[in-house]
């Protein structure tokens, strides 16, 4: 008979490439003032990767740190899931390269594209893999190089997106410390946010900001409550809210709608920008590394975005 196990997050880490790119630096390259950027998005700065820092490089940096944070060695990782939507090379996937760069001798590896919900989807896949016994430890990485796909002529996307990678290790455990995922999609709204081709070799992210805002602020609060319910806790018992760092306006509205204590809401977007699949693990790792979390704290993770797609789950921190 198949054995089943619990799953736990045992390591979390982040990697932000290069120096912060401030609004004062970015504004002259586009058509809006720094003040507009802050008022519209809440973002003060973001990071852009250098030409020699591709997605697999950033992912490997974050991955190594997460494995070390979990007190594990390379031989312990059985699977790598790379959540990304901004790799230019379609085939092969980046996961095997990431595993190779870290030096993982026995890991399976695949890519998962759910854009901004990529990390939370991947976390659910990792949890399932350890719970069924398919893996002892899974390295989950959200890594994006969105700066390659933004157009200075469209400031609403040009100023919000950033680069980076966040990684987590999910391990087999006695307890169920990663809750069931609540997920869904709305493909009828696929045109609201995604890559658009403007000509040969000219592909950029385009977005209908008001429609993204409308959908996310209406759709995600019930998902949040369902994720708590499925883990057997109330929203009031959750210690931290870590939503996808789309922009500060969306985060503020979500927090207000859920009546979540403001000082317990991740707003990493302010100096990291929107890093798509990397945003949730980057925000989570920042809070964790700040020392503000206590062992056993409950965190509600919410990924949502292009697809449109969403997933959320409650986890218990180590």
């Amino acid at each position, binding site marked *: 008979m198949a054995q089943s196990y619990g799953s736990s997050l045992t390591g979390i880490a982040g990697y932000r490439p290069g120096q912060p790119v401030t609004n004062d630096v970015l504004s002259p390259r586009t058509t809006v003032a720094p003040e507009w950027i802050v*008022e*519209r998005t809440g973002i003060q700065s973001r990071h852009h990767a250098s030409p020699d820092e591709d997605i697999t490089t950033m992912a490997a940096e974050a991955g190594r740190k997460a494995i070390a944070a979990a007190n594990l060695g390379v031989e312990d990782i059985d699977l790598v899931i790379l959540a990304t939507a901004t790799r230019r090379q379609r085939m092969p996937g980046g996961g095997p390269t990431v595993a190779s760069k870290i030096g993982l001798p026995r890991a399976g590896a695949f890519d998962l594209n759910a854009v901004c919900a990529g990390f939370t989807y991947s976390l659910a896949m990792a949890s399932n893999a350890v719970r069924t016994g398919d893996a002892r430890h899974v390295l989950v990485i959200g890594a994006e190089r969105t700066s390659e796909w933004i157009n200075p002529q469209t400031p609403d996307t040009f100023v919000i997106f950033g680069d980076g990678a966040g990684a987590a290790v999910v391990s087999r455990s006695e307890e169920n410390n990663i809750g069931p995922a609540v997920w869904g999609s709305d493909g009828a*709204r696929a045109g609201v946010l995604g890559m658009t081709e403007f000509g040969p070799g000219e592909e950029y992210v385009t977005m209908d900001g*008001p429609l993204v*805002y409308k959908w996310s*602020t209406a759709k995600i609060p019930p998902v949040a409550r369902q994720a708590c319910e499925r883990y057997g806790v109330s929203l009031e018992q959750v210690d931290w809210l870590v939503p996808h760092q789309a922009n500060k306006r969306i985060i503020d509205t979500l927090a207000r709608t859920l009546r979540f204590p403001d000082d317990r809401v991740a707003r990493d977007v302010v100096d990291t920008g929107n890093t798509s699949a990397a945003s949730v693990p980057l925000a989570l790792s920042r809070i964790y590394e700040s020392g503000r979390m206590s062992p056993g704290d409950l965190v509600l993770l919410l990924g949502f975005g292009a697809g449109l797609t969403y997933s959320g789950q409650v986890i218990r921190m180590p």
Partner: protein
Amino acid sequence: MTTPTITQQDVFAEMDKELRRLLPEFTGDITPTSTFEELDLDSLTRVDLLAAMEIAFDIEVPDDEVAKVVRVQDLADLVLSLRSRA
């Protein structure tokens, strides 16, 4: 059970209340011909207003109507139209 009838006055009253909640520093007049741009509502705050009206009047604003709502009267007309279809 029939859907309760609402009047244009009902919609204007609710919209005035929500606008002043969203724009606490605004003390001027809000008229049917006021544009949301004149009221200094950016596009995301305009969505907040639409969401408040959706809840108040139990309607759902279709995506293709969102960008068309530029004046107070436009939103009032849309709310009444959606309610009549309910």
